[in-house]
């Protein structure tokens, strides 16, 4: 009896099912995180910027070699004294609601970006004012020449300089924007958005790509939307995501777990693609400079002797092919890689570390480590650190909490005893860390800087000098001095860098571009 019912139901439905799949070309992709917040300015999370680059557009876009290329800008002039930048928007720029993009929107957007994002803040500290000449052209007047204006406007990584409508751009940066309306190649289908499961983007039919069909290279080039519909599916379990790719349930998988790369390499129709050579991830141990014991530089330097990068990297990545030891703060393999201050990390000797700590006045009081429990790279790294410290005899108070709690706890400046912290571990993108100005964590702007609050005017001076340097040798020399100084101050202790390739069904999609700092999805087409 049961069989009869089932057979009847199937016969009825099959034709219907096939039809639905036919015409529409859909790209199903699993990114490294789930789209939870839709305001790329409000949060520094990379996934929000990936979402941003789909639905918004930027004035400039850095290409694969980090050179800024015009995107929304048609033509631009820089005054001889390098103090006045005049930008003119190219034609055909329209928001998803049909309204044209005007300089009012651009100025408001840049202002909001400039008050929240680190690179933006640094740029606008030199900007006197922005002046709209007319709807298409506006001027940006600086008080001193600044070398990184175009690179900043075209930066990739977190909190990209996106252009949104004026009414959204006016929202206070502490609040999230309510609507996700941009002028980019895709529209955000807010009604189909299921946080924690799926974010849907539909092809923006009346998007006008840059004329001349320039070849895509990272954020540069003409953006031609490849598919009718992009679904960013969220699968929390990396193994399930890998199996889904092998099974053909998804087409693109941004950050497969390193252990599964051998399986993916063998799987039918699956292709692995290494990202850009500097697009790796760098591990960082951040010490709290405000409170003992790490307010004392000796104690901070003692910690170097506890760190054997090999242990960390094998725990996180496992397969040596995908990680490399890098004793510097600036990304190894990047233009400004150097060996300044790398001697600190050459001498792995836990006993010496303990002895130095004692000399620095450490008497065995508990050191609070924020122990992340649910992050597939930070959790193993913290376990390696905690064990190394305990083996050396340090009294470690490892407080386990989920990543969300770590993010909120690290913002607290109170002493570790009541709600503060001594050490936490995080990672940062290789692209950002390759450039002294873009690398926010290398800064030491005291309490105005990032959590941990290292304080050394010298480092800030060197970072500014780098911005003004005109020639490459000059920049390389400044970079070496900066890294040497930063290593001495122990702004943070690097524990190596690793990169994970992209994995995608080459038999189903193509047009995948090696990304630098941020996954580029708009160019992907479906066979």
């Amino acid at each position, binding site marked *: 009896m049961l069989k009869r019912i089932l057979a009847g139901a199937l016969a009825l439905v099959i034709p219907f099912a096939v039809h639905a799949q036919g015409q529409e070309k859909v790209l199903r992709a699993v990114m490294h995180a789930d789209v939870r917040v839709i305001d790329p300015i409000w949060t520094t999370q990379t996934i929000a910027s990936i979402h941003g680059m789909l639905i918004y557009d930027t004035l400039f876009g850095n290409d694969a070699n980090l050179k800024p290329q015009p995107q929304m800008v048609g033509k631009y002039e820089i005054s001889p004294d390098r103090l006045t930048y005049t930008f003119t928007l190219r034609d055909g720029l329209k928001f998803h609601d049909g309204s044209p993009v005007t300089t009012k929107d651009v100025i408001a957007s840049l202002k909001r970006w400039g008050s929240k994002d680190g690179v933006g803040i640094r740029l606008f500290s030199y900007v006197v004012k922005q002046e709209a000449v007319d709807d298409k052209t506006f001027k940006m007047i600086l008080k001193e020449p600044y070398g990184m204006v175009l690179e900043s406007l075209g930066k990739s990584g977190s909190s990209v300089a996106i252009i949104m409508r004026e009414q959204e751009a006016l929202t206070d940066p502490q609040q999230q924007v309510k609507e996700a309306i941009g002028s980019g190649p895709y529209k955000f289908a807010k009604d189909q958005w299921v946080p924690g499961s799926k974010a849907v983007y539909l092809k923006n039919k009346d998007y006008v790509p840059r004329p001349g069909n320039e070849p895509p290279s990272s954020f540069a080039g003409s953006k031609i939307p490849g598919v009718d519909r992009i679904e960013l599916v969220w699968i929390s379990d990396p193994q399930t995501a890998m199996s*889904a790719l092998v099974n053909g*349930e998804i087409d693109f998988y941004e950050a497969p777990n390193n252990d599964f790369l051998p399986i993916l390499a063998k799987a039918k129709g699956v292709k692995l693609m290494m990202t850009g050579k500097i697009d790796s991830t760098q591990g960082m141990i951040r010490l709290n400079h405000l409170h003992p014991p790490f307010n004392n530089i000796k104690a901070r330097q003692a910690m170097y002797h506890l760190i054997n990068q090999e242990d960390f990297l094998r725990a996180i990545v496992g397969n040596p092919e995908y990680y490399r030891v890098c004793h510097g703060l600036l990304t190894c393999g990047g233009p400004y890689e150097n060996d300044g201050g790398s001697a600190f990390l050459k001498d792995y000797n836990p006993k010496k570390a303990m002895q130095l700590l004692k000399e620095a006045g450490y008497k065995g009081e508990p050191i609070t480590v924020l122990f992340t429990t649910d992050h597939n790279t930070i959790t193993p790294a913290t376990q390696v650190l905690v064990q190394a410290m305990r083996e050396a005899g340090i009294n470690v108070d490892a407080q386990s909490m989920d990543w969300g709690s770590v*993010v909120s706890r690290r913002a607290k400046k109170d002493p570790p005893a009541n709600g503060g912290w001594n050490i936490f571990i995080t990672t940062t993108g290789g692209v950002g860390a390759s450039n002294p100005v873009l690398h926010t964590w290398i800064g030491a702007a005291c309490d105005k800087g990032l959590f941990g609050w290292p304080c050394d005017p010298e480092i800030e001076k060197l970072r500014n000098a780098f911005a003004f340097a005109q020639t490459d040798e000059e920049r390389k020399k400044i970079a070496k001095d900066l890294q040497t100084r930063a290593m001495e101050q122990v702004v943070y202790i690097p524990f190596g860098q690793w990169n994970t390739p992209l994995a995608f069904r080459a038999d189903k999609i193509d047009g995948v571009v090696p990304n630098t700092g941020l996954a580029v999805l708009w160019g992907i087409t479906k066979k």
Partner: protein
Amino acid sequence: MTAYIVRRLFATLPVMAVVALFVFFLLRFAPGDPAAIIAGDDATAESIAAVRAKLGLDRPMVEQFFVWVWSLMQGDLGVSIFSNLAVTRLISQRLEPTVALTLSTLFVAVALAVPIGVVAAWKARKLVDRLVMGFAVLGFAMPGFVLAYILIYFFAVQWQLLPVQGYKPIAEGFLPFAESLILPSVALGVTYMALIARITRASMLEVLAQDYIRTANAKGLATDRVLLLHALKNAAVPIVTVIGIGIALLISGVVIAETVFNIPGLGRLTVDAVLKRDYPVVQGLILVFAGAKVLVNLIIDISYAFLDPRIRY
């Protein structure tokens, strides 16, 4: 009968009140402070305070409760702190997968477990009975998530017969919908099936020892009539009771199945919300789950009247 239903509905009010009170104060007394988390990465003290004010967390506890209850009356379960979406919308988005999973598991489990239980009772102490009881005890002990991974490993990955994860809404066609539910239903259903099979066997055995079964045999009735009409109809009440209780077991199991099979259901939503301390979502969900359970109990009680003429309301 309607008098009974109305009385039972009134009886649910105190229960729901207890649930509401428990959930509301439980979350408020937790040491973690949601405002700090919401304020985001480089939050300063004032921005955290701003968030607290916006959410009304700084107003006296009692006032918060009445505001919440009053909005509850109008069916407004508040807005998620993180995604600014109304809780009711979040819930309605994810209702279909959870309901589909629960019902398919329920249907599969009951359709298999009851006949197995009847046969085990009929052939008591023989091989088939031992096998069934062995399966029941094992099924009860097997942790759901371990079984789930084993199923995925063989059926989805090795033999690629069924999808590894995800849920295909019925709108996308019955076949993909059914396929995406098979593995989760089995992984979730095994424990539930073990429970029903055991109770069916126990209540059938008790009924088969009754005098009226001896009378039925003394009338020389065919075995299947004695078993299915005379015995099973009497055993129906305890069986239906355990199916009702089992549904609570199912709701807990759904949370795990949704995690392993990455199904965007209410269970997964609750876990994420609790891990992120998203107050309104957690409160709304627990109320929804509690309401569903109370409703199920009512339906089960009413069904008794149809199963046993002696029960009159």
